């Protein structure tokens, strides 16, 4: 927790350093330019569902509607399967994709739970119990270092 360190970080960060840090966050895809470019048409497709007439056409024949878009076959399969983690990997963003699960009538939390390794009731209970802890969820590197330290500790103990 660095929130109360005083020194203002006024020097402009280099964009490469800025972006590199994002890859260190466990279980998270930050919606960078690279992802925005990759998922462009997936996200534009999702936004098209903000119009009732498009939702109706999509629901009538999902595959036919998807075929109108410049989307890879892989992405179409993920969209048909509502595989949101796969869609995140392909550059989808949840604010865009929410138009798809809202069209499905799925509440936000239930849709989000499908991206975790929990069932919806388990996820719901975790949230009621205070949510997922940031402990152990801040940094991949830190987690690896901690794991290595523990392994060494265990090695010593043996």
């Amino acid at each position: 927790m660095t929130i109360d360190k005083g020194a203002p970080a006024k020097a402009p960060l280099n964009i490469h350093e800025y972006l590199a840090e994002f890859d260190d966050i466990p279980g998270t895809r930050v919606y960078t330019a690279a992802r925005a470019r990759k998922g462009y048409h997936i996200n534009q497709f999702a936004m098209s569902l903000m119009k009732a007439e498009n939702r109706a056409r999509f629901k009538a024949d999902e595959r036919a509607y998807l075929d109108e878009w410049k989307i890879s076959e892989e992405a179409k399969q993920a969209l048909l399967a509502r595989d949101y983690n796969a869609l995140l990997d392909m550059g989808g963003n949840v604010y865009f994709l929410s138009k798809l699960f809202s069209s499905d009538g799925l509440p936000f939390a239930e849709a989000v739970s499908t991206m975790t390794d929990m069932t919806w009731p388990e996820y719901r209970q975790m949230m009621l119990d205070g949510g997922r802890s940031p402990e152990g969820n801040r940094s991949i590197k830190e987690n690896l270092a901690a794991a290595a330290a523990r392994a060494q500790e265990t090695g010593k103990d043996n």
Partner: protein
Amino acid sequence: MARITAGVGSSHVPLLGVAVDQGKSNDDYFGPIFAGYEWTRQWEKEQKPDVIILVYNDHASAFDMKIVPTFAIGCGESYKPADEGWGPRQVPDVEGHPDLAWHIAQSLILDEFDMTIINEMDVDHGLTVPLSMMFGQPEAWPAKIIPLAVNVVTYPVPSGNRCWALGEAIKRAVESFPEDLNVQIWGTGGMSHQLQGKRAGLLNREWDNKFLDMLIGDTDAARWIPHIEYLRETGSEGIEMVMWLIMRGALGEKTRLLHRHYHIPCSNTAIGHIVLEPVEEETVPA
């Protein structure tokens, strides 16, 4: 002269809109959340703000990937609730205040903020949910609204420092508007939440509350929090809190706490709510 009389911070979770629209705001799940807004509802009735500068983010509703403005200010006459996939919310249209909005937009550009001026757009839950939380279900919203949409979706989003500085410039702009108007500024979004991937559901009560602490008094520490810290500590969508810094920056050097509320959870999100007023130093006129 117009003046900013108060700042309000609030989460804008879509489910809160559903709760209001479906009359569930007193049930076991929502009751404790809405209870924390009761004070503010009474206070708003007394305050009767003429205009609210409502800082929010568009959640891929008005702006698709064709055009992504960093700071967009609504100068239009009125705005309709967006259809976010389940039909538009049945809430009143949002009436703008073009006179003040254009004045602020012009002043900000002169002040070297690279604003995007918007005259027509629909507004999503980011804007309408805070209105419901603060005003309930009136026939018409009791104040004019100037939407200020901030990109917090596509990275990089604006830095905390830039947001705070925008707030400072908004204060100057409002104070140079000749008409006598009671203006509030609201910062919305957050608090901790992550809506994606295996880490979804992350909440951070301790960090969120330190953030709320930092909005009170004369510290400006919050403007220097780097984006990576929001991401690590508060989840990927916790970055929405940078919008609260625009509100805080617009309150001047020092603030006084009027009301504060925090509740976990609402859907995937930690609900935070704060009401602040500016503490003006006695200044010798220049």
